[in-house]
């Protein structure tokens, strides 16, 4: 029970991201269709994004938005009450990166489709070899 508690339940975010990563990796490698591979890549990246975000969470922490007292002036905040905002910020960037990569990859998939009229990898390789 102890083992389960410390290694499985307490660190469930790690397990989640590992499972998602493996799903994504599996899709990238094993699937034949290019779009499915792309989706797998996206899942892979999303897994890591989720992981980062989960790092910043704290028990009982709230959204990291600091309100100013009306009439100017600021009060010191207690950082333990707020969820760590840095990973969120970093992941905003990573999401942008993921979206751009996905966009470029989709554009490439469109180009491939326009030329070879298929998105299945094995058919693609046959058609390339023939041409």
């Amino acid at each position, binding site marked *: 029970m102890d083992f389960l508690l410390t290694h499985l339940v307490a660190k469930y975010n790690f397990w989640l991201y590992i499972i998602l990563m493996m799903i994504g990796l599996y899709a990238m490698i094993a699937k034949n269709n290019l779009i499915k591979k792309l989706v797998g*890549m996206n899942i892979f990246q999303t897994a*890591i994004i989720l*992981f*980062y975000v989960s790092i910043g969470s704290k028990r009982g922490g709230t959204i990291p938005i600091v309100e100013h007292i009306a009439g100017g002036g600021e009060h010191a905040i207690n950082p333990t009450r707020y969820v760590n905002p840095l*990973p969120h910020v*970093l992941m905003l960037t990573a999401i942008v990166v993921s979206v751009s990569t996905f966009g470029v*990859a989709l554009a*490439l998939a469109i180009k491939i489709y326009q*030329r070879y009229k298929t998105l299945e990898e094995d058919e693609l390789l046959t058609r*390339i070899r023939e041409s």
Partner: protein
Amino acid sequence: MTGNYPALLVTVPLLAAFVIYGCSWLHKRSCLFMALLGLTIPFAISVALLKKVLINGHISYHLGGWDPPWGIAYELDPINAIVLVAVTTVALVNLIATSKEIETRFSDRRGAFYALYLLFVVGLLGIVATGDLFNLYVLLEIASITGYSLIAMGDPARAPLSSLNYVFMGTIGACFYLLGVGYIYIMTGSLNMADVHVLLPPLYHSSAIVVAFIFCLVGVMIKMGFFPLHSWLPNAYTYAPSPATSLIAPLMTKVMAYVMIRLMISVFSPKFVFSSIAASNAVVWLACLAIVMGALMALAQRDVRRMLTYIIVSEIGYIVGGAWIGNATAMSGAVLHIINDVLMTFCVFLSLGAIARSTKGYQIENFSGLFKKIPVTMATFVVSGLSIIGIPPTCGFFSKWYLILGAIEGGHYGFIVVLLLSSLINIILFFRIFEEAFFVYPKTNAVHTEGEASIAIAETPFVTLIPLVLTAILLIFTGIYSGSLIALIIKPVVSAGLL
């Protein structure tokens, strides 16, 4: 102004890229000029920064005035500065040399090409200059995505799929790196390289840090094309358009090798890398395998471009092997080889692009009689080939010198044997081509003097030829001045703790 040089280094080409893309809708012909401006300024800045680093020592620039570890810092030491100069030089010279080809081949998409070109350079400059781990990831992805797009602009039959495969593998690599950074952040709470370096020592035995290092390393190795994670490399660089290949091939993989060395020296100190992780021997043997496999696969190629891409795989093996041998001589040899390899690979791909104008294809058989047709271009190809083989006084010899010396010091005789073996295989690889270009067999049974009269000289235009010749001369100069380069490089290496 001068104090802000590190920031300007990255922002000037960034702004130029957007301006160029905007201008391409209005006035296409001014795009080239702006691109040249957008690369000349960073070149000048990088030279100025090198001079500053040589005089003042380490430069630390805080972006936005925020002190690290809250803000992002750009850290410049001699290794950085020299690699920056190499990157900007290659980018600028390549643009000048291939400008004519870009203008004709991509005339309708000029704006896009120049913008992607400049953004790629932005990414690389940022990777080299930055002192922040996450900033490195961002710039790495900037460079990668623009790289994917540049490669996809090539041969319409093969380039998109090659680029897509590169996208898949490259993304896995970058994500592994990001994961590694995440683990470091969990354990240390900081993303600044220097800060992490200070915070890590008590944590050396924690498995999370070991895993972080391994993730970062594997990610970087995928992106640098280290055997067996190199499978994206041959296709991607073969089917890319030649102006893009002569930009990406010399730079991308070597900058990632620089990242690996930076991680080894400045983030995870050599003490951690070589004692806590007792894998350095295994990595050196893997590097030996990379060198041999690269050389053997290059032997099997008839397409000269693919042969050169496998030579890149081999060269990366040299750098990784040298870095992981574990003494200062070998590490300095590895850093010197990064710089030399940037120049050698650039010269060989640029001359190949120039040669392609005069041949029907890229097979070795298409090279007949080229010494008569394009003597000066072939001469530069010969010089770059000799440099890759490692013949003095070209630069390739001297990095091999330090690598072999370091291997003798470290007792790694397998690495020496493999290095010499690959030099011998490189002789075969290049002299095959030189022979084909030199020996003109007349296709008829005419006497050899008659066969030659039919080949007139049709040299490459000056806009490509002069940069080519200058690069070839630079190869020899870098060789002769390698002593001074090593003296510069070895200081930060030794002060990091390597002996």
